[in-house]
């Protein structure tokens, strides 16, 4: 795959749907800003926290913490103020940086898009890492708003799954009943079920789009994918997200058929392990100077989407419950199906719940199936959860003959990211492949 040929190898073209993706995201954050003054229900919590459970209560806006933190990170001045506001209150600097950005915005009462921090009416949240339950405990205390946290059962991947489905689905039911009591109205189960079906579809579609990146040349890369995957993170329960992904799937299929590359000089394919460093996305543009395309990541594939692993270990599109004819006729059935979908789908299932060995195995599968020459590992000081297993990943990849490069950074706190050091490492990594820059 590593070619001696220099220069342009493939044609390239911008994504037709790029502006649409940005527009959807901008509208999402505008809706959050306007929700309080319009009297619209605003719910806070993790971006992964089960929007379909809320959908049964009708129209709502959702302030998902992690993506919000990432958004703030892209504004260095505001991000620094947020971090300092949190530290001034005695919180440690090594805590989750998504959370510190969120908290900072809350303590400063400032919204990155202008105006005050929008107060949610309630918090529906999920707990899967050490941070999450505590994150919203502080938010609930500070804003004086009710909070319900659902625990995502971890550990023992593939074992005692029926117990986990039961635990998760009963918590879902408990959360719906809690919202009914808190909001003073009943959930419309039909609306909830419809929303679940849309969620499944959106996630399945993003997974299918991710699969297309196995193509050479890759139609998408790690600089373009965040803007596209984030819709599945923020609004996967909405029809506009599923519709967008349907359209995007067609466009990306076309790009594959026409061999339209996102990096026209693609001569090296890399996987990225861990969150992108939101304060230094230029790293991916820098890699392109060498003709290196970062074609995938665990994080971007699984946060907004899902994939299915066949018996032979190959990852393929995951069919939705509605495609498989799994009934969701009432609340009880629907919540169980929802729990099963989420337990399998998820990035955490594959990052946190998996034993370290299996997590390394998953990364290796991505490397092989997406035809990668190496892996760039972000040793992320801002997320201990995603850093879980990262060193063992490195060992396992090296043992399997896959070259790796690590860089220490922080997903959202620019103070912990030394850009010149990272550039030096990239230079050395590229040199190890015998590659020099194609452009200055």
């Amino acid at each position, binding site marked *: 795959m590593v070619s001696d040929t220099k220069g342009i190898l493939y044609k390239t073209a911008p994504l037709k749907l790029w502006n649409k993706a940005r527009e959807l995201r901008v509208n999402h954050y505008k809706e959050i800003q306007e929700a309080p003054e319009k009297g619209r229900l605003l719910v806070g919590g993790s971006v992964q926290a089960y929007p379909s459970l809320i959908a049964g209560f009708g129209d709502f806006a959702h302030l998902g913490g992690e993506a919000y933190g990432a958004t703030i990170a892209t504004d260095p001045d505001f991000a620094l103020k947020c971090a300092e506001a949190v530290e001034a209150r005695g919180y440690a600097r090594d805590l989750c940086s998504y959370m510190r950005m969120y908290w900072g915005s809350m303590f400063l009462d400032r919204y990155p898009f202008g105006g005050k921090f929008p107060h949610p009416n309630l918090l529906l949240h999920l707990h899967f890492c*050490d941070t999450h339950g505590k994150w919203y405990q502080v938010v609930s205390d500070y804003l004086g708003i009710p909070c319900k*946290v659902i625990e995502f059962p971890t550990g023992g991947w593939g074992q005692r799954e029926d117990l986990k489905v039961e635990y998760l689905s009963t918590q879902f039911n408990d959360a719906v009943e809690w919202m009914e009591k808190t909001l003073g109205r009943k959930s419309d189960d039909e609306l909830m079920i419809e929303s679940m079906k849309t969620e499944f579809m959106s996630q399945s579609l993003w997974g299918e789009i991710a699969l297309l990146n196995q193509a050479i040349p890759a139609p998408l890369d790690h600089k373009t994918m965040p803007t596209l995957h984030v819709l599945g993170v923020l609004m996967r329960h909405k029809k506009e997200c599923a519709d967008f992904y349907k359209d995007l799937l067609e466009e990306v299929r076309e790009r594959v058929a026409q061999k339209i590359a996102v990096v026209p000089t693609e001569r090296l394919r890399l996987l990225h392990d861990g969150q992108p460093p939101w304060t230094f996305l230029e790293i991916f543009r820098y890699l392109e100077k060498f003709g290196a395309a970062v074609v995938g990541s665990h994080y971007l594939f699984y946060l907004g989407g899902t994939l299915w692993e066949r018996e032979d270990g190959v990852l393929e599109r995951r069919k939705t419950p509605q495609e498989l004819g799994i009934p969701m006729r009432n609340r009880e059935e629907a919540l169980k199906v929802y729990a099963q979908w989420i337990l399998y789908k998820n990035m955490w299932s594959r990052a946190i719940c998996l034993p370290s060995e299996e997590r390394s195995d998953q990364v290796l599968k991505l490397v092989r199936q997406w035809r990668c020459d190496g892996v760039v590992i972000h040793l992320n000081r801002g997320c201990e959860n995603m850093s879980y*297993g990262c060193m063992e990943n490195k060992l396992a990849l090296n043992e399997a003959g896959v070259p790796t490069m690590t860089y220490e950074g922080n997903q959202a706190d620019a103070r912990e990211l030394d850009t010149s050091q990272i550039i030096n490492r990239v230079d050395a990594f590229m040199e190890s492949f015998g590659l020099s820059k194609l452009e200055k």
Partner: protein
Amino acid sequence: MAVAVKSGGAVKQFGAIRQNRHEYAKEWKKRTGGKVLGYFCTYVPEELIEAAGVLPVRIMGSHEPEDVTEPHIYKMYCPFCRDCLAQGLKGRYDYLDGVMIAHSCTHIRQAYASWTIHLPTSFQYYFSMPAKVQTPLAKPFLTSEMKAFKAALEKWTGQKISDDKIDKAIGVYNTNRRLMREIYDLRKSATPPISGMESMEMVVAGQMMDKKEHNKLLEQALTELKKKTGGNEPSSRLIIIGSEDDDTEFLDMVESLGASVVVDDHCTGSRYFWNEVVPKDNRLEALAERYLTRPACPQKDWEERTRWPHIEKLCDDWKVQGALLIQQKFCDPHEFDIPYLNKKLQEKNIPSLFLEFDVLVPVGQFRTRVEAFLEMIQQASLEF
């Protein structure tokens, strides 16, 4: 200057067992022919392990500098988890027949994960202890987990675990907890007969030895301590709150300055043994209830904050004058709670000193800070 009185007899033996934990376990194996199961995290249901005739030993560090874990555990993870893994990689736990963990913090899970990859044993078990201990829905889930764990132990040992065996094990553990509570109660006295360091060694020894043998030592220790007279009133009565902490050198230093650590809230202390199992017909459910309602690790203390009411009561009952907030470097769960606890302690006029711990503690520098802290407490008590 009054110095915390050191005890003799049985109390001294706790320290000896802690120092020689590996020799103890190897000798126990030889003596009984039984298996030894290493565990990470005190949410592991040891009663079931005891009922299976297996010796549970908590895997802990040795407080020595090491360089063997860097390829396995990211540097941002706490020193304790790295110290634990280092012991395994250095072969100090080569006598273990199995390892297990109860779902706990990310860092210790990484130590367990790396252990199972590089030091595999015939029995490796991930016990899914819920993090959401406050929901009633956790009880049926945890009870089912207990059932599955029991079945796994039976398969491993080839022995059935009867209700009778579980009852006996619960009896042993409840006795153990009761005896330690009784000894802790003695520290409410104006002249505590046992120091904070000795109390920590007592608890930590219990995490490393056969509970029946630990009970014998505890009974002996209780008798000795109740007879003890002529003790000194400490200059300050302190509570230690925080992460895993078995740094006896630090505690010894604090108490050499005239203070006494009269009570604690950490998992090498009271959190380990505070509440008993309330027996019921459904033994596994009884066990689940005990582990769900024990004083919570901050990793599990949400949505409501249950730690502060418990800590406040400890401070009241043990007449605490100052608090040492100990946190293992990078320990997220405790980093979340410390600002809140600091605020509540302040509201209660209990001064606090925050100290960040690593594998090795800078005792000299900490001494200076602790001295100043104790002067502050003594000054405040004079003003009152």
